[in-house]
């Protein structure tokens, strides 16, 4: 067989997959990019008349507010995930136990279960008739609104996304030799100093890739704010959903989608880059 025909065979092999990407990804994304520049019509949904009005509308105080809420919830979620995820990642990177497989299984399995089920669990725990409020009432402390505000959405998102922070952090910490920690301690560093001066700086690559991943998924959340945020908390994902399926203003929905896509796309490309560097460095060590 000549090299040329072998190369051609490779193209044949990847062709079905490429076809899926074209039909289900490239086509639809090109379409929404196009529609986002068209004029909305209440009767025909959209008219083929070129306009920038859909993007201009995003500068509205209301939509800027929703964007700000989205960014804020994304940042807080990422921060909380980093704080909670670091000790877990350190533990998993350093533990020498035959239970490690179980620990990993328990960390990753929740990722496999539908997010709507995990949020349902939070509604049972935090709802007005939920476990926490039942306990509070039992103690004569009255009812507390634990749902329907931004902190509730953060609780839901942190629980959903925490493993995405732990896994890259764990990869980064595993690359720090334990002898480095011992050396610092032998030279008189306290546990806090070892963490602050040695471990934390060396875990930054993991922290960066975990943060980018968590942030990009958090700002495109839809189900979590819809179920845990009540009517008050609206994120960009909720707007996209309403504009596509309820208001049927597809040009505006498309412009929202394009903006969200640009933000998350940039963040995800950053994630893939840092992750690549993280694994490449591990290969050399």
């Amino acid at each position: 067989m000549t090299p040329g025909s072998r190369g051609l065979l490779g193209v044949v092999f990847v062709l079905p997959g490429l076809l899926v990407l074209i039909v289900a990804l490239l086509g639809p994304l090109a379409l929404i990019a196009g529609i986002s520049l068209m004029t909305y019509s209440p009767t025909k949904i959209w008219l083929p008349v070129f306009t920038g009005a859909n993007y201009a509308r995003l500068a509205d105080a209301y939509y800027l507010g929703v964007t700000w809420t989205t960014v804020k919830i994304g940042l807080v979620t990422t921060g909380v995930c980093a704080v909670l995820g670091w000790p877990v990642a350190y533990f998993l990177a350093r533990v020498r136990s035959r239970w490690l497989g179980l620990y990993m299984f328990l960390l990753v399995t929740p990722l496999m279960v539908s997010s709507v089920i995990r949020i349902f669990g939070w509604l049972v725990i935090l709802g007005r008739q939920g476990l926490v409020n039942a306990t509070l009432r039992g103690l004569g402390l009255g009812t507390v609104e634990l749902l329907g505000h931004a902190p509730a959405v953060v609780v839901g998102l942190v629980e959903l996304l925490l493993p995405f922070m732990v896994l890259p952090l764990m990869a980064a910490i595993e690359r720090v030799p334990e002898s480095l920690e011992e050396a610092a301690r032998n030279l008189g560093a306290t546990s806090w100093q070892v963490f602050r001066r040695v471990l934390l700086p060396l875990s930054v690559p993991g922290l960066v890739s975990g943060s980018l991943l968590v942030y990009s998924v958090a700002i495109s959340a839809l189900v979590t704010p819809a179920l845990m945020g009540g009517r008050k908390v609206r994120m960009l994902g909720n707007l996209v959903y309403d504009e596509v399926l309820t208001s049927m203003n597809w040009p505006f929905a498309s412009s929202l989608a394009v903006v969200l896509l640009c933000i998350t796309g940039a963040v995800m490309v950053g994630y893939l880059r840092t992750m690549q560097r993280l694994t490449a460095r591990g290969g050399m060590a």
Partner: protein
Amino acid sequence: MTRGPALGLIVAAVYLFLLAPLVIVVIVSFDPTDAFRIPPSGLSLRWYRAFFASDTFVRAFFRVSLVVALLVSALATLVGGLAAVGLVRYAFRGRTLVEAAFLAPIVVPEILLGAALFLFWSYLRIKWTATLAGLALGHLLIALPYVVRTITAGLHGIEPALEEAAMSLGASRAQAFRKVTLPLIASSVLSGAVFAFIISFSDINIALFVAGADTVTLPVHIFSQIAWQADPTIAAASTLQILAIGVLLGAVQRAFRLRVAM
């Protein structure tokens, strides 16, 4: 950093937080009342009977979610496996670009994939929301990156020289692949298939947009039930999903020491 009891306590607390919603859902599904109480006031299968008595729940679980997940698992393994072979075993122009393209669906938020697919089909006037094909194609798209990556990694791990040796002993290229390479990458193919199944089975973000009235998946049905009437039938349905996924993962992990492609 101390590795003493303080760290252990923090880690245990975070695990508790991570697993609490799943554990709670499982517990309340066995409560005979609809009070969502912990500890439950008894042990009963009342809500499981309610689940199997509900046409919409049974349909969403067995006739939509399960069927689509099996379909996606088979298709993604086939399409993704072929792509992996093409990417690893052959050199062609634009190979790195194609490899990057297979990661693209990960970069796009799932809700936007769902919204874009819905608008695309509406634009082309394809009534795919009324059939399982629309769901299957959407899920195939998000499953492909994981399958391609898992099988690519498996192929990188074996020597092409083995296949060449088989061929020099008289096997055809197809025979060498089937008899030598395929058994060696069986575990990564199986991991890919299981991942694809789970991605489809637990997806809500795409289904929320592309599932029609007759093709409501289990997660979408749970979503709308929560908004309407949150009774523990939802917990029973959820527990059945957790059980299905847990059994599948446990079996695969035991058999092949599955490495999570994360």
